[in-house]
């Protein structure tokens, strides 16, 4: 079983909705250890994506992800705009030209996205950033694919790991982003970027038909 352009479009539509639904929650996570705008930033970005999506006639999944990349870069601002934008851009690059994606392609896509975030943001696992959602997701996806899982299962494994990774940021001290100014005071709060990344990855799984 493979997924194609429809999956990519469904993933993005699901993301638009989930970001809008969780806007207030993400703002309030960011209020605790940041500057109370993460939900606003992402929602602004994905609303712009929604507008663009209506006029886009994509031929490949990469077309969809490239549009998301450039729209997020152009509309989000803040730290998360260039970081997530780069994630989508690199993800698109990893599947350039393909119309159907199998499990290995999905692992490549997730890996490229994560590497893009690291390239721009230089964060390491445990720094209490969105990387703490992406890295476990990439690892779980790779493990699932190696064990022969199909695309929905690979994406489910990634989303589960991202969710756990986001929750696991709670006891951490931050070493990147605004939360790093807080020192010990960041302990006990979930990183908003890790949380939003886990929401995004869950939509990828749902779009692939995870049960």
């Amino acid at each position: 079983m493979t997924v194609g352009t429809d999956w990519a479009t469904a993933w993005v539509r699901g993301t638009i909705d989930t970001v809008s639904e969780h806007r207030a929650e993400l703002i309030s996570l960011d209020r605790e250890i940041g500057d109370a705008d993460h939900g606003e930033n992402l929602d602004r970005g994905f609303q712009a994506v929604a507008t663009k999506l209506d006029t886009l006639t994509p031929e490949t999944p990469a077309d969809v992800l490239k549009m998301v990349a450039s729209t997020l870069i152009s509309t989000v601002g803040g730290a998360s705009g260039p970081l997530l934008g780069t994630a989508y851009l690199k993800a698109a690059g990893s599947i350039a030209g393909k119309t159907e994606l199998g499990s290995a392609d999905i692992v490549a896509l997730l890996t490229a996205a994560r590497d893009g975030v690291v390239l721009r943001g230089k964060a390491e696992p445990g720094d209490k950033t969105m990387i703490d959602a992406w890295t476990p997701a990439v690892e779980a996806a790779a493990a699932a694919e190696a064990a022969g899982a199909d695309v929905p299962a690979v994406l489910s494994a990634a989303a589960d790991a991202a969710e756990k990774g986001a929750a696991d940021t709670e006891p951490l001290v931050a070493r990147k982003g605004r939360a790093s100014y807080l020192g010990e005071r960041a302990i006990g709060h979930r990183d908003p970027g890790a949380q939003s990344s886990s929401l995004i990855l869950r939509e990828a799984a749902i779009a692939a038909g995870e049960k």
Partner: protein
Amino acid sequence: MKKLINDPKNVVDESVAGFALAHADLVTLSTEPLFIARSDAPVSGKVGLVSGGGSGHEPLHAGFVGFGMLDAAVPGPVFTSPTPDPIIAATQAVDGGSGVLHIVKNYTGDVLNFETAADLAEAEGITVRTVIVDDDVAVKDSLYTAGRRGVAGTVLVEKIAGAAAERGDSLDEVATVAEKVVAQVRSMGVALTPSVVPHAGEPSFTLADDEIEIGIGIHGEPGRAKISLEPADQIVDRLLEPILEDLPFESGDDVLLFVNGMGGTPQIELYILYRRAAEVLAERGITVTRSLVGNYVTALEMQGASLTVLKLDDELTTLWDAPVQTAALRWGR
């Protein structure tokens, strides 16, 4: 949340529009994408200076656009860095053929968005150099953080680099002067009350009736510690100590002393802080030869203030004194 605004979504657009109307003699407005430029931009042969960042810190940056200071300011949403698009457009609009300097406060979002913009502007054939301002000594262990934040010292960088550009310095020379200011300026702030981001509608942090936050950032990011309210003189001592130790500032130094209000603090209080800060510096043999007091780098309606000390030499003093004509800082013309 009580604010003199219309729809929270339009706060930045409407405010920037009002700014451009009120200062039509100094600036022109671009709305798509959003930036403010000197009305005579691009100034042929002059290095262009572009700064920007989240809104809510006014008069930073638009208030410093004009002769002898910035060529363009790019306002992002409140407390959120602008995206690369308006930064690129502003960079193109002010390039007079001698390159453009980006002055960027050290926050992950600002750095990343300006970096992307600089890459793309370079791809368009404009030479861009970037100076990162990180004057906030409240952030310790910068190895284990996103690094020190850029706060009130940014105004001094913009003024002095702007004067260097205005006198005809090359891009490298302007960047070198800006980096010298960054190297010699240190700041630290205190908050008495939080600010409320319009789209969030709630205070970004809370302080009890007798609590203050020492080492606050200009977005209300928490600082070093919450402590009980103290007399102003003690607060000054607490802020000044880490500033002076850090460079360090030493007996015999000439400095510019800058007391900055965070937006909601009355001026009567800023001068009380100034008095004590000047006293402490005098006791240490440090001579205040230039001063600045007022709301220049704010955090919306936050009550609080920051102290900034810049070590001066003849070059920096001359550039500080050079004429400037902007909405928020003006002398000599």
